[in-house]
């Protein structure tokens, strides 16, 4: 097989289709008796006031931010890791510096108190 992505593509397609099948079957055979109470949003006790799309804690955003930076870092580190074996020691030092620079960012965030949940 020349391009493994053809296989992956087919796999993706089928892998997404197979879960759909039982849902489709269910859509045909499952009963449908809607009523307002059943359709209402699940809530514990009280009626829901307003819709659920309320503003959220900014802290989630900070973690996403740190994650974003480290996630992009990994995109750089995987090629580095793959070619580490074939290249001189200099490359090792290079990668270590790369990691240390990013850890510096993490420690900055830490020191600024941004990793606290409060």
């Amino acid at each position, binding site marked *: 097989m020349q391009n493994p992505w053809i296989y992956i593509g087919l796999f993706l397609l089928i892998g997404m289709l197979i879960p759909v099948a039982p849902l489709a079957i269910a859509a045909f055979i499952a009963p449908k008796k809607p009523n307002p109470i059943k359709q209402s949003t699940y809530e514990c006790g009280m009626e829901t006031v307003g819709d659920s*799309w309320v503003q*959220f804690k900014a802290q989630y955003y900070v973690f996403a931010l740190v994650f974003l*930076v480290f996630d*992009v870092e990994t995109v750089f580190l995987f090629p*580095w890791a793959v070619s580490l074996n074939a290249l001189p020691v200099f490359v090792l030092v*290079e990668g270590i*510096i790369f990691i240390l620079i990013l850890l510096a960012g993490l420690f900055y965030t830490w020191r600024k108190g941004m990793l606290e949940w409060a």
Partner: protein
Amino acid sequence: MIDASQVIFLLSAGLIVVSAVMVVSVRNLVHAALWLVSTLFGVAVVYAVLEASFLAVAQVVVYIGAIAIMFIFAVMLTRRDLLSKSEQTNANWVWALGLAAIVFVALAFIISGYGASLNRLPAAMPEGYDPISALGNALVSPEGFALPFEVASVLLLAALVGSVYVALNKAKE
């Protein structure tokens, strides 16, 4: 007569274009972000068609795994305008549309100006050629892009420090 790879390309290109149009036109910003995911996934497929395996996967990891999530988080953090039923385009949207169209026409004009030289077809991958390690070597070897490699980490550091500072500087509130 078109072959299978062209079909795949056209399908993914269609996905990309339709999703991109949706990104810039839907009112619901979460939907816009999800359409962006769809666009970016299409781009990843294009990379796969181009046999740039690493980029295809990295595209999904970075854009869908991180950037799209960031957008959704940001939308949720600034949600007053999320469901506003008002127009999502500004007063100058006609101008913007015109300019975008002109840009596209100009680009298409330039591309067509090169004529047949752009009808080049991809060469077959040489036997035993490993693009991943070639990419690794190019990226980190001293003769390659070692400096941009390090600079990228500094860029990311700066982005992290800067955005943490900007987003959450409590002292200024």
